[in-house]
């Protein structure tokens, strides 16, 4: 899909080239993450693909076609582009921002409007609320979403993303990453993704290209990179705690089936039955759901002693944090550590209960892989 052959880029006035004789291929539908310390040439490499920077020498092929011989404007119209600073147009509404590329392509008005609605919904922004707002009225996370929607609106087969989630807080970042992976699962785009965060690379990438001083050091799948780093540099980049990093690679839903845990209690469950449930539970608590299977709270063994009542609803305690099943095990772990509990409730997008994961489950995964 994207092939770089012997690509070198030397900026005028710089002694060393920013990128030296790079050879790389990204397969169709893959997310390729370029990772490395700042100044390693990863952003330059990405920006040569849509010719924001022109290579000094070498060739770039997109679908077998020589990108350097194509009209750059046409080339860019078919490549989605998200940069770290997002670069939303401050004088345009969200709607106009998202419609940028379709407007450049001169789509009919009603088609643009429909597609804008669709994209905003896809990235989780209600068009009715946000269409007419200006970027200055949005939070950092919402702007990132608009940036992604704007890049994807004309359905380009290729996307270039330069630290798209770099400027938001860690919790929002994890959520955006998960949403992005969910969208990507459906869209199957070919993506070149730049980051300096190895954890993000492991989580997002189908393949990871590690760069250093303008050279490609290793290009491998995340699990190969973790188990067989090519040299000292890659090993130090992935760090000592590689087994913990493996938690980035596994999604909760992948292990949820194997976990055997007590069924949740319902809000109207009588006391006797509730006690039985608690005895069956390996975490001395049970989750409580309502009739629609929506997560309502939790009851621990101690709660039975503290309070009185006939049914489960009388003993219920609020749950502060839960995670969705498309989050990674690492997300689950950080929630557990944050809440100081050895378990976390798993819900779907509609807040319906899907299961519970414990610290022990995570340990098992790490042990199996190790």
């Amino acid at each position: 899909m994207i092939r770089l052959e012997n690509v070198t880029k030397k900026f005028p006035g710089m002694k060393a080239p920013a990128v030296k004789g790079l050879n790389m291929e990204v397969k169709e539908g893959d997310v390729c993450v370029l990772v490395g310390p700042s100044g390693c040439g990863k952003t330059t490499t990405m920006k040569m693909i849509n010719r924001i920077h022109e290579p000094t020498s070498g060739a770039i092929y997109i679908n077998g076609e020589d990108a350097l011989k194509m009209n750059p404007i046409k080339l860019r119209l078919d490549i989605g582009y998200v940069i770290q600073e997002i670069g939303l147009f401050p004088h345009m509404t969200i709607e106009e921002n998202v419609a940028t590329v379709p407007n450049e392509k001169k789509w009919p008005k009603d088609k643009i409007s429909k597609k804008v609605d669709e994209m905003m919904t896809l990235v989780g922004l209600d068009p009715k609320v946000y269409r007419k707002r200006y970027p200055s009225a949005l939070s950092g996370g919402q702007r990132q979403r608009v940036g992604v929607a704007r890049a994807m609106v004309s359905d380009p087969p290729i996307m270039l993303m330069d630290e798209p989630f770099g400027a938001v807080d860690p919790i929002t970042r994890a959520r955006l990453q998960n949403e992005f992976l969910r969208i990507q699962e459906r869209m199957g785009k070919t993506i070149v993704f730049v980051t300096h965060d190895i954890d993000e690379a492991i989580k997002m990438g189908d393949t990871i290209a590690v760069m250093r001083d303008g050279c490609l050091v290793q290009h491998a799948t995340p699990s190969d990179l973790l188990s067989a780093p090519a040299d000292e540099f890659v090993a130090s980049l992935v760090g000592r705690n590689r087994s913990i990093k493996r938690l980035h690679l596994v999604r909760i839903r992948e292990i949820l089936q194997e976990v055997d845990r007590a069924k949740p209690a319902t809000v109207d469950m009588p006391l006797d039955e509730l006690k039985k449930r608690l005895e069956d539970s390996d975490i001395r608590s049970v989750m409580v759901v309502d009739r629609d299977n929506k997560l309502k709270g939790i009851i621990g063994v101690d709660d039975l002693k503290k309070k009185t009542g006939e049914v489960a609803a009388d003993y219920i305690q609020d749950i502060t944090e839960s995670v969705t099943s498309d989050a990674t095990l690492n997300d689950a772990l950080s929630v557990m550590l944050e809440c100081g509990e050895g378990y976390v409730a798993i819900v779907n997008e509609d807040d319906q209960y899907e299961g519970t994961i414990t610290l022990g489950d995570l340990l098992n995964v790490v042990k199996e892989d190790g």
Partner: protein
Amino acid sequence: MFRNLWKWIIIPLLLVTVGIVIVIYTVNNPTDSLVARVLTYSNVLRALSEHMSLMLVSMFGAILVGGLVGILLSRPELYYLGRGVENIVNIGQTIPSLAILALFYTILGLGFRVAVFALFLYSILPILRNTFAGITSVDTSVIESAKGMGMSPFRILAKIELPIAYPIIIAGIRTAVVINVGAATLATFIGGGGFGDLIVTGLSVRRDMVIFTGAGLAALTAIILDYIIGQVEQRLVRWS
């Protein structure tokens, strides 16, 4: 709806009415025969039309030239020139307006055209400087993302850079208009006419009423134009 009517029609009309009232009052209540001879409707109207022509012709040229040169200097290929030109412009701005008029009198002589030309040159400066500063202050990430999405340099200029720079460009035009209307009162010294004629005549015959009429009308003109441009700016810039 009502707010628009108020902003665009009623307030400007009120300001114009103030001017009309001043003229009607002074023309009909001259303090003596000398004032009556100077302050006639035809004299005041002539001063007004001369003043407006001085201002409109010179401003039209200044916006055209200042805007275009500002845009050209902001292009990456000419950017290095832009910084230098900006400094020259800043120095030019420190020359007093009377000195500019006097300077052009020594080179080009007397008359309306010389006055227009001097005002034109003087008004270019803030427009050029603000156009250049406005465009070059647009966030590079905004330009890069526009470029990366496949917008041509011309489209980026027309759709992104200029609209984002509007507030600064219009502020430049606003400054230029106010300075222009004020400096145009000095055109009388080189035979350019305008409200300056009334003021200078008033001074030489020592009649306060004539001075007041000329100065008041010139000030009112500046206020009205400043107000209208301010409204246009609000209209164009709804996003900040």
